[in-house]
Every structure is written in C-alpha cells, then in structure tokens.
C-alpha cells in the first residue's frame, strides 16, 4: 500500500508505542502536522510555546517513564531552538527522538527560507542523527532512531526530513530495528571481572558505593539495594542517581559533589574501596582529580566503555548493564556490616547537621529558607512526589532536602545545567505519570526563561504544582560573587514581575507566601489541589548553599560555611 512520507512517520511513531509528542508546527513540517490532525485520536500532540519547551517536556516524560520522549519542530529556527534540549539530553543520557522538517531536497544548500544545517549543528550533541531526503528511507531510519535512542546508554537522536520526502509516496512496511552492526549498545558482562570485584568487595574494610543514573536507566534499583544491604556498604548518590534508593534507607548516606553532604565527600578520601556504579565522575562530583580517592582501589561498573578511565582511573572495570552485572555479583558477596565504618558517616552527619542542616530546616532568623519549603513539600506529599528542579541554589537545596521512596522521582538538569528546564520538564513528567504528584521547584531566574509554557499547563489543564523560590537574585551566581568576587553583584539582581498575577493571567490558581506562618497552609493547599497550582515563596535574598567544595578544591576541603 502506498502512503505519503508524512503518514509513514505517524505509522512509525505508533509502531514504536508513541502516543504523546511535543512540538511546534511550521512550513517545512506541515505535511506531518496534517497527518497528526488525522491521527489525533491515536497520537496526542502538545503544542509547546517554544521549541526548547518541547524538548524539555519530552525529557521530563522520558525521565519519569523510562520511555523515549519525542519532540517535533520545523526547519530553521524551529530546529535550532531544539538544540539546548538535545544537548541536555545528551549529557544526561535521556532517550529522545527529535524530528525536524527541512526544506525540499532540491533547495538544500541554497540558503532557502528557514533552511539551516541542523544535522551539522546537532552532530556534537546527538547520539546519532540523519537527514532523510527520500520517502522510502523513512521506515528504516525511524526504526533505527528509536533503537539507538533507547538502547545501551540512552541519548538523543535527531531525524531531519526534507519536505519532498514528506509529500512523496512509499510502500510502507515497518520492521523494528534489533541491531546495528557497527554499534554494540551493551558490553557482555565479564564473569572474571565480576569475580574479582566480589573478592575486592569481600576483603575491603571500608568499602563505599557511589551510584549514578546508570542504576535508574538500567533499572538496577533492587540489585543495588540488595548489594548495599548484604555487604553493609554505605552508599551515596550523584545528583542524577537520586531516588534510585530510598532517601531514608539507613545505608543511604547522601549526595556527593560540590553541594553534596559532608560525610560522603570527606569519606571519599578515607574509604579503601570506591565502588562506582553507573556514574561518570563529573568534575562537580570529584572536585580536584589530583586529590580524589587516591588512597582507594576503584571498581567502576559502567555500560559505556568510553567512561572507564576517563576521569578517575579504575583498578577494575566491570562493563555492562548494572542490573545484569550486579545480579551476577550478588551471589558472590559475603554478608557484612562494617559497623565502625558506617559510624564514621553518622559522626560526620552530626557535624553537618549542627553546622548547616539544623539552621536550614528550623531557622532562627526571620526570612524563609529554601530547605524549610522543600521539607514542607516532603511532608505534604508524603515523600511520594516527583520533584522537578531547575538550575541553581534551589536545585541544590531540592536535591539535598527532598525525600524519595520511589525511583525516577528526581528530575533535574544535571550535566548541562540548563536554566529554564524545570517548568516544561514538569509538564512532561506529569503527562508521563498522571497518577503521581509532580512538583516543580524553580528559581525566579530560570522560571522566566521558559515561563511561556504556563500556556500549555492552562490549555491542557496539566495538574502540575509549581513552586517558585523567589530570592530576587540569580542566587547561585550571586553566591559565587559573594565568595570569590568580593561581593560584586554583576547582573545578578532581578527586578521581577508579579508572578502571581502572571499565573492568574493563565487562569492558574496561585498564592504567594511571604511569612513563615503561611507556609504550611499554602503548601498543603497546593498539594491538595486537583488542578495546576502556582506558589511563589519569598525566601531570604542572600542565603548561600553549604556545604560547598570550591571549584577545583579537594572533596576533603568541603566548606561548612
């Protein structure tokens, strides 16, 4: 049966199980939008208010559901507006397929209206990309795009489709892609390496686990928990590993990295065995590499061979999907408790509690703190909410203080640090998990980068809860200016609009909290709401996030104030 390329694209999406896409129409993608109109009962298209919002929504959807997020845009500016979200998905390993329209094949390279070389532009930030210029290529390339996006270490794929290929007809036959001969997504587990790992773990006196998003992407949460409990190993997480293990688990010792917890950072340099699971030793995690865990042997469980020995040399690499490798490891692990070693973490926690946490959660000063707002969200939602955070001080506070009982619950822009991520990502997260409470925690700076996506929330009545922690500053930059640039606040003071009125303009229920006495009631009202809800909390203007490892310093030199 002959169908148009545009219709073929819809059939490909349906065959891949896609029922929701985010996008923005325009000239070069109009044939596909015409088919979307015809197929609207099977495939929902959500009109973002800017293409960047479409990518972040697709990312939020992918991160909460584990499925591939799909974003669509036209050629030229539509395509270039996707780039930030694609780069974000690349560095945070998020499965996403972006489809862009392109000028007709005969106009390629002629500087036609809305022509841009999106394949060239997106090459460094995609896992794979391809330009389709013939309708007959569509089924095979689309199948390959989804396979590559979701397999192995996931990532974004961009498929650019010239307009003639959307109009032309093809004989449509769809076969799912099951392999690409030049691409090996998951290394086979090496049993020898796993046996060596078990020996190293069994003989370690002070073993320490740092896990990352590889546990979530590999769905290895149960295996991680089993390992931690059987071997009695304290486990810390990177920002993207958060929620892979219950926050309240007695062996969960907190966050590593620049604004992580005190014990996990300091004790990185006291363990005798560092077991890294599905993490990539980002510079925000390690601080100075010259002084990072030099005393310890390092085992690196990792799916991507290019990550091994990239930043931190591994004494042993265990390649493969974390679920598979940990499954093979578990029977070889001896029961252990490591009581004294674990007590070290408790002692260091007490130090951080006294110096930082106590005053953050129960402040003696008048102004509201970010942590007390987050704590209130924890209580009101029963630790069950998906927390979507943006980038900056509020993000570090959200990750430090939010409590989780369920995996895939912390969604944030970790690697790229994209301000403006949270609002659209929260829309995608809610639509990917309608049964769950989704709370976006955003700073006043990042909120204004994608604030127009309130239009999506209003139009589709997406019941997300939006909390803006307003300190009238670009807080994290201001903090660095205070600490490292002698308080010269260059362009970090914000004169903000009336956020409540803006939300009201979109007919979203809204409330502002200025006094501590209003906080509990306001957060409870927000969580109880069945509709979208906007809450602005005026917080202390010049608070800092501590602990902090100054850029380039050692994890041992983490500052408590």
């Amino acid at each position, binding site marked *: 049966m002959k169908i148009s390329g545009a219709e073929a694209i819809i059939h490909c999406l349906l065959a891949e199980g896609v029922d929701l896409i985010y996008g923005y129409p325009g000239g070069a993608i109009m044939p596909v939008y015409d088919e979307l109109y015809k197929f609207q009962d099977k495939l929902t298209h959500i009109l973002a208010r800017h293409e960047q919002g479409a990518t972040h929504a697709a990312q939020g959807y992918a991160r909460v559901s584990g499925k591939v997020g799909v974003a669509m845009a036209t050629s030229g500016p539509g395509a270039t507006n996707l780039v930030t979200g694609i780069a974000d998905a690349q560095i945070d390993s998020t499965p996403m397929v972006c489809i862009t329209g392109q000028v007709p094949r005969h106009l390629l390279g002629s500087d036609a209206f809305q022509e841009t070389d999106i*394949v*060239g532009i997106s*090459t*460094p930030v995609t*896992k*794979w*990309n*391809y*330009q389709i210029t013939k309708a007959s290529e569509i089924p095979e390339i689309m199948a390959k795009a989804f396979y*590559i996006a979701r397999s192995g270490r996931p990532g974004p794929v961009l498929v650019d489709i010239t307009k003639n290929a959307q109009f032309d007809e093809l004989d449509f036959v769809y076969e799912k892609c099951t*392999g*690409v*001969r*030049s*691409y090996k997504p998951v290394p086979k587990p090496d049993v020898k390496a796993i046996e060596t790992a078990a020996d190293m773990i069994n003989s370690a006196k002070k073993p320490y686990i740092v896990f990352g998003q590889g546990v979530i992407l590999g769905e290895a949460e149960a295996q991680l928990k089993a390992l931690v409990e059987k071997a009695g190993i304290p486990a810390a997480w990177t920002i993207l590993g958060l929620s892979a293990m219950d926050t309240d688990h007695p062996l969960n010792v907190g966050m590593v990295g620049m604004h992580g917890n005190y014990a996990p950072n300091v004790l990185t340099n006291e363990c005798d065995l560092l077991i890294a699971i599905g993490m990539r030793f980002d510079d925000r995690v390690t601080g100075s590499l010259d002084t990072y865990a030099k005393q310890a042997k390092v085992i690196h469980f990792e799916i*991507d*061979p*290019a990550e091994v*020995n*990239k930043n931190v040399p591994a004494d042993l690499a265990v390649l493969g999907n974390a679920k598979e490798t940990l499954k093979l490891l578990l029977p070889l692990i001896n029961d252990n408790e490591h009581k004294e070693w674990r007590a070290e973490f408790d002692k260091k926690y007490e130090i951080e509690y006294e110096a930082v946490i106590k005053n953050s959660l129960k402040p003696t000063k008048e102004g509201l703190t970010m942590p007390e707002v987050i704590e209130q969200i924890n209580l009101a939602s029963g630790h069950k909410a998906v927390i979507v955070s943006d980038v900056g001080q509020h993000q570090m506070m959200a990750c430090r203080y939010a409590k989780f009982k369920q995996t895939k619950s912390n969604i944030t822009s970790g690697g790229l640090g994209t301000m403006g991520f949270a609002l659209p990502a929260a829309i995608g997260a809610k639509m990917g998990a309608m049964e769950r409470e989704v709370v976006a925690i955003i700073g006043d700076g990042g909120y204004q980068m994608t604030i127009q996506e309130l239009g999506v929330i209003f139009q589709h009545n997406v019941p997300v809860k939006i909390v803006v922690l307003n300190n009238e500053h670009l807080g994290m930059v201001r903090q660095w200016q205070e600490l490292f640039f002698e308080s010269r606040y260059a362009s970090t003071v914000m004169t903000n609009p009336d956020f409540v009125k803006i939300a009201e303009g979109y007919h979203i229920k809204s409330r502002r909290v200025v006094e501590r006495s209003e906080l509990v009631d306001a957060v409870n009202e927000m969580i109880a709401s069945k509709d979208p809800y906007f809450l602005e909390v005026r917080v202390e203007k010049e608070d800092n996030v501590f602990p902090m490892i100054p850029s380039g310093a050692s994890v041992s030199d983490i500052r408590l104030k």
Partner: protein
Amino acid sequence: MEKQWYTISVYSENNVGLLNRISGIFLKRHINIESLNVSKSEIEGISKFTIVVFMTEDSTRKIVGQIEKQIEVIRAFYHVDDETIYQESALFKIASDLLFDERQIQNIIKESNSQIVTVARDFFVLAKTGRRHEVDEMHDALEPYGIMQFVRSGRIAVSKARMPITEILEEFQNQ
C-alpha cells in the same frame, strides 16, 4: 606523559555525516589533526579513516574511546610509528625549462626515487611516495629552483598487528 605520534585507524560504515562527527571529537578537545585520510578498506563497503595526531597515550586512548562510541564506527585502533608501515605521497609541479637548464634537477629526480608523472610544454609533475622526511628533503632540494605547486597527502598506514574487523562483523551476523 610524553607526547608522540599516533596513527589512529578507524573502520566505519560509509556515512555522509561521519567525518564531521569524528573531526568534532578532536575539535571539542582543541586537538589538531596532523593528517587525515579516508578511503575504502580491505572489506567491501567499509571505510577506513587514517588520522595522525601528536598526543600523549592517555589522550589518544580517550579519543579512540570517543570515536568507537559513534554509532557507525565499527572499531578504532591506535599505533605508534614502529607498529605501522606508513607512507605519504606528494606532487611537485615544476617549470619544464628547469629540466633542461638546471642539471641538478635531474640528479634530484634520480636520488629521490621519484617519478615523472607527466611532461607538458610549460611544466612537468613529479610524484614522490615515502616517509614525511623524505618528501621534506626533496621539497627542500627543489625549492631553490622554484616549485610552481606542491601538495602532500595525508599519511596512509597499515598496522603490523591484525585489525580484526571481519570477526566483529561476523559476530554481529551470527547473533
């Protein structure tokens, strides 16, 4: 770690965007590619990139890891000069009258073991294949007489050890 010359050999699918993807890996790390050659390989339908860089082994290993990660790359290898047999080619375009006026030119042609590719009324073309220093020596010898045009190719190299690409492809077929 000391820098030295490495020859990176990349076996890949023949894809229009791959050169851009691979060169981007070097660009992103501010590494200069000393020479680059792309050709067909011993296996039908499989391309081979030969890339020469001056780097530490640690950086080379990481770069090769990043190259191998690209979807259309089958395998990438790196070798030091001793582990490969390598050559470059060069063409020299020289005014024809020099061939008769300057006796030394004929000696240079003989001693350099180069070939005359063509002789026209106004110019003749010499081709030289060899190591970089041999090409450089010939260039230096001819330069005083005037070279109308000069071009040198990227390095081409084969490794002394095997590069087992067929096995990788067969393994995939058998899956």
